[in-house]
């Protein structure tokens, strides 16, 4: 870039600071500082008031306590389950949907697409409450079905049962975000060179082979992003779980963030809660670094 002002670098620097300052101050104050503060608090047994003195210093005890807490382990394994279920079910289904409906437009295809995407835009809390109605044990969809097809009169309480509550909540997560991934894939499909596909078909490749050898490799960028967002998002799930049962029954649907809220904020255990936050941050950071190194970096080869 050429230098635009004759007044020289000094004035440029001043103007630069003027332009940057508002965003810089807000960002430093409310985004960067709290993360470091959290890291510091996590070393203390602190209720959020009074001085942080030596007596309250715990070192890494909060973290040790965390990994000995059974509900924390439930929370972290729930987050890992969300990651695995999303990668194994949600994203492949989104991809199949994209293949089936995203390639050719037909009457109504635009409307259909906007209906798929709508849950993504919808407020998480509202989505959660809607599904609470659908799962209602007295008159919910499953109870209706079981009454219709069998003579059984028993109510099916998916959300009230610790064995099924988490699966029921995952279905809502599946519903809420699948449209987003599908639209990403539809965008990615536009970039697949048609000639390559035709050439593969002429060479005798069947449908699966075309998908595996032509379409998937050309969509690598979009899939990389979709997986990344899905994993990071899975570790930060809060609203839907909160709306459907606040981590209950008996903490069976706790995730890292609901755990942070229930065991940190609610009990004014700011040191302990901050340790949870640091775990979330650390998991996302490590994933990000490994992902950049092995997956994103790899494509340059």
């Amino acid at each position: 870039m050429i230098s635009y002002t004759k007044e020289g670098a000094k004035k440029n620097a001043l103007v630069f600071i003027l332009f940057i300052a508002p965003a810089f101050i807000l960002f430093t104050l409310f985004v960067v500082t709290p993360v470091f503060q959290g890291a510091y608090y996590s070393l203390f047994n602190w209720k959020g008031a009074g001085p942080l003195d030596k007596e309250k210093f715990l070192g890494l005890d909060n973290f040790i306590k965390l990994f000995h807490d059974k509900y924390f382990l439930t929370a972290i394994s729930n987050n890992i389950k969300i990651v695995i279920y999303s990668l194994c079910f949600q994203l492949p289904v989104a991809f199949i949907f994209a293949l089936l409906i995203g390639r050719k437009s037909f009457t109504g295809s635009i409307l259909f697409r906007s209906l798929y995407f709508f849950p993504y835009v919808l407020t998480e809390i509202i989505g959660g409450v809607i599904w609470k109605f659908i799962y209602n044990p007295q008159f919910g969809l499953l109870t209706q079905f079981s009454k219709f097809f069998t003579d059984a009169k028993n109510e099916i309480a998916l959300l009230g049962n610790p064995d099924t509550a988490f699966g029921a909540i995952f279905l809502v997560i599946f519903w809420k975000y699948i449209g987003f991934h599908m639209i990403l894939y539809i965008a990615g499909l536009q970039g697949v060179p048609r000639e390559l596909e035709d050439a593969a078909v002429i060479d005798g490749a069947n449908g699966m082979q075309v998908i595996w050898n032509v379409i998937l490799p050309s969509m690598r960028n979009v899939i990389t992003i979709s997986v990344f967002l899905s994993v990071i998002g899975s570790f930060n799930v809060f609203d839907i779980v909160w709306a459907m049962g606040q981590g209950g029954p008996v903490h069976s649907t706790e995730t890292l963030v609901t755990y942070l809220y229930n065991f940190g904020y609610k009990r004014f255990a700011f040191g302990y809660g901050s340790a949870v936050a640091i775990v979330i941050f650390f998991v996302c950071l490590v994933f990000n670094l490994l992902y950049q190194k092995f997956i994103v970096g790899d494509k340059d080869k």
Partner: protein
Amino acid sequence: MKSKKIKHLFRVIFSAVTAFLMFFPILTVIMGGFKEKGQIFSDPFGIPRPPTIETFVEILGSASSYWVLLFNSIFITGATISIVIIFGMLAGVGLSRIKVPGQQLVYNYFLLGLLFPLTVAILPLFLQLRSLGLIGSRFGVILIEAAFNLPLSIFILTGFFKNIPNELQDACYIDGGTIFIFFRKILIPLSTPVISTVTIIVFVASWNQFMLPLLVLSDTKLYTIPLGVMQYQGQYASGWNQIMAFITLSMLPIAIFYFILQKYVVEGLTSGAIKG
């Protein structure tokens, strides 16, 4: 030829069925609001017979919190968007159109923010707001939401400004302009598409934000729509027709926003992701 037609038909039917399944929960809610209390229990997923608008009238009447929630959500989201756009554009110009050493460093510093989800910082933020006297204030929510939306917005805006040809800036300077005039007279008018992308991203994020106002706002008079829905469904735990009507009205603003601007919304949200 025949197999192609069958394929096409299959595609249409498949799309229609899945679209219906995806939209079914929302349809259930909308219909639920029009049902009488008896029918919501006896026939929760059917068509309202007879449809009644009584519940809606009741909620829109003065006794309910609906209008207060709507106002608060509009106020907080509007203010958040304004701050992000103004601060973000200024920073974007600084990072792309002014030549200074260390620019890249500042840019990377902002991008660092993409790694910090709000949830990670929430407890220290609570304490920080408390010491600033901003607990229980809408401005506390606005400032934090704006701060957390800055990184992606700055990233998108800077990328856009970088692609504006230098010749335009040179021409402006030759005519005696400064960076301020260039910003006001040339960059802002050129930026409509990127401003709308950022607006959409920030709108959806801020409108749906739940955890932050949950911690910051305790007075129900300041509640936003997500908080209000959560509270309402707790209060009217057995009046599902009321909850349904309330939810229907609560999702109306974002539904209108989405269905009117859907092309831009879908593009904005996915392009934001792809670029981020």
